[in-house]
């Protein structure tokens, strides 16, 4: 019964709420931006629906980084790292993020967005 209700709710929600599980997992600090331009999972990974949405986003990102890199003669990895600078700058309070040292951190209240030094071009 509960499962049936859940299915019906998903059907009604439709495209408008397509990424709601992802946003929920982001707010909970389970999914966050990585320095390399992709999303990743912190120590407490999310449920299957949020995982599925996160993987779909990463696949789209990989395709975009690859095609832009091919047009400009730059590796997809370098495009991803460049994107990471902008995306880390959008990390909100309470969200998790991963820097190049391999440590997942969570942006606390009053803390600035976690933009690494190399992002400023200096």
């Amino acid at each position: 019964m509960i499962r049936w209700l859940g299915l019906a709710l998903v059907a009604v929600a439709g495209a408008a709420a397509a990424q709601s599980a992802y946003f929920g997992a982001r707010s909970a600090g389970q999914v966050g931006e990585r320095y390399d331009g992709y999303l990743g999972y912190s120590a407490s990974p999310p449920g299957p629906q949020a995982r599925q949405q996160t993987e779909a986003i990463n696949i789209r990102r990989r395709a975009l980084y690859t095609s832009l890199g091919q047009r400009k003669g730059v590796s997809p990895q370098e495009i991803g790292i460049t994107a990471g600078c902008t995306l880390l700058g959008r990390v909100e309070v309470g969200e998790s993020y991963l820097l190049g040292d391999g440590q997942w951190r969570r942006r606390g209240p009053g803390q600035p967005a976690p933009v690494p030094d190399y992002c400023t071009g200096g």
Partner: protein
Amino acid sequence: MRRTLILSLPLAAALAGCVNVRTPEKPIEINLNVAIRQEVLVRMQRDVDTLINQNPEAFPQRPAVPANPQGQR
């Protein structure tokens, strides 16, 4: 006005040349065996920002106000 612009072009080009000569070649190390060339980071930032802004399905942004949390029409 126009002449000023034209006259200032060689100067701008010369300045740009100076900046290019000073750009370091060595890549920036970001640990976990990843590196990026500083020149790429600077040159590609604008294109990458356009990419991010024009592909919301790959870079979804939370709506500022959840006006329709149930997703109903």
